């Protein structure tokens, strides 16, 4: 305020240094890596520049499996979790008694360690020679056949994966939607009631448009989050996701970087950039749709 203050740079120095080293530099570096062919981690040499890393990654069956898994996960979990969260938020908003209790309980998964609870899901769904596991007991009680959800068929594994993902992402969505619903001005409803508007009409013509910005926010962050799925999968299927056939794109990146396939930062970079392009494209499409939808409701 007093004068042009060069001391300001001193205050900013730590932030600039950390961001520079761990965010800005890597951004350029990852691009360079992705084009360096045959990079060797130990000798830090490479023998060419080109698109080989990309073509390798795109032909790698593990990567294609990971892409397939990720897309299925995204397509199932984002609409489902957002929809259920909206229903729960609506239900929460319509009650008075026990509202706080429900609200608190529903938020619990947010503050739990993903890896820890994933382990619980695993033992609930796993079928071993000694025990069918809790879920299979339920299935049998309703006359079904026991399935091993952890080491069994693809659809079963995918089911657990989606279920756990939804379980994990719900608290955030419920929280956001509940506060969005609560912030809709009561007078709109009063006015609509005087006009004799029905419940469904009130929902589609007032509630939905009013919370649509938040809804789209959730869809967009939901897409981004689901595309970056990894920890939840490790929690359920263990670190060797490739052999479980349940790897995700991010999982592939990490495996390439370190882990069982061991030390190929070039492939990892190429895969990460492909992921970034996918996420970016989908986010842009989302934003375009949301802009249209939000304008229409005005």
């Amino acid at each position, binding site marked *: 305020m007093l004068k042009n203050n060069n001391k300001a740079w001193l205050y900013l120095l*730590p932030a600039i240094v950390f961001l520079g080293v761990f965010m800005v530099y*890597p*951004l350029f570096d990852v691009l360079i*890596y992705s084009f360096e062919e045959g990079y060797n981690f130990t000798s830090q040499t490479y023998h060419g520049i080109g698109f080989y890393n990309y073509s390798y990654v795109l032909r790698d069956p593990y990567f294609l499996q990971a892409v397939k898994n990720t897309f299925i996960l995204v397509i199932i979990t984002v609409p489902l979790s957002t929809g259920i969260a909206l*229903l729960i938020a609506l239900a929460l908003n319509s009650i008075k008694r026990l509202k706080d209790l429900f609200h608190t309980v529903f938020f619990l998964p947010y503050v739990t360690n993903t890896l820890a609870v994933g382990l619980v899901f695993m*033992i609930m769904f796993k079928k071993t020679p000694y*025990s069918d596991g809790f879920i299979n007991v339920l299935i049998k009680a309703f006359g079904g056949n026991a399935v091993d959800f952890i080491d069994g068929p693809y659809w079963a594994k995918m089911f657990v994966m989606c279920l756990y993902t939804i379980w994990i992402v719900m608290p955030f969505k419920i929280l956001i939607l509940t506060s969005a619903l609560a912030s809709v001005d009561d007078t709109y409803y009063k006015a609509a009631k005087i006009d004799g508007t029905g419940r469904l009409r009130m929902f589609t013509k007032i509630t939905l448009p009013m919370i649509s910005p938040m809804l789209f926010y959730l869809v967009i962050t939901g897409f*981004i989050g689901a595309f970056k799925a990894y920890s939840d999968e490790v929690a359920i299927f263990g670190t060797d996701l490739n052999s479980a056939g349940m790897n995700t794109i991010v999982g592939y990146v990490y495996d390439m970087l370190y882990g069982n396939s061991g030390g190929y930062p070039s492939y990892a970079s190429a895969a990460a950039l492909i992921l970034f392009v996918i996420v970016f494209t989908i986010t842009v499409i989302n934003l375009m749709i949301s802009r249209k939808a939000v304008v229409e409701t005005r």
Partner: protein
Amino acid sequence: MVKNKIMKTVVYIFLTVWAVIVLFPFYWMILTSLKDYGVYNGEFVPSLYTTQPTAENYVNAFSQVELGRYFLNTFLFTVLTTLVMLVVIVLAAFAFSRLQFRGKNVLFALFLALMMIPNELVIITNYVTITNWDMRNTFTGLILPSVTSVFYIYLLKENFEQIPDELYKAAKVDGTSDLGYLMRVMVPICQPTIVTIVILKVIECWNSFVWPRLITDDPKYYLVSNGIQEIRENGFGRENIPAMMAAVVVISIPLIILFLCFRKKIMEGVSQGGTKG
């Protein structure tokens, strides 16, 4: 009226069903952790309750695997990361909100642009950087990449800017230095926001898995998340599920207690600035 009552009942049933889905895993892990190893393995059809709870699994969790060490590591990691981050972001937010300097707006725009960079993109180079610096299996290596958060700088800057200009002038007239004003006036006034940031960061640290997994392969430096993974793959002879569940319970408890104490604060904070999923 009758229709309304049915509606209400349906709503409550629906909410209760979801509450059960949320709570059941917690119940199951506590239940399993209390079952005797032999009893658990003897149950082909797992029972929904136990008549003879045992604390033996908890003893095993701390004695057979290094749960205590994982705990201590995570605690240290969380405290150090949060502290260093607080210093970094408070200083940066102060510069952006209170000081005038050339290039401020451009720099702030650049900072905001960084918010769009996904962690997955930069983690590769960071892994290489930390490896090259010989910082694998060290706390420094664990902490360094996560001590800045553009989002928290933004959040705090917005908050700092709410403090009226006149307070700054008053402090200047009294001969308070910039740093003195920051520490004695701004930080105390913005304490609620800072607490929110601390809580969110603590949750993030306690649950962090990917970076520690990349940067540590020596169990001496494992955090709880990596510990769980280690226990699952190598601990307790792989099959001692009750002991694993005991470890899981122990790991889950600190955050749940934190949550129950600061319920309002955490939920407010998350709706303001948290994202997950």
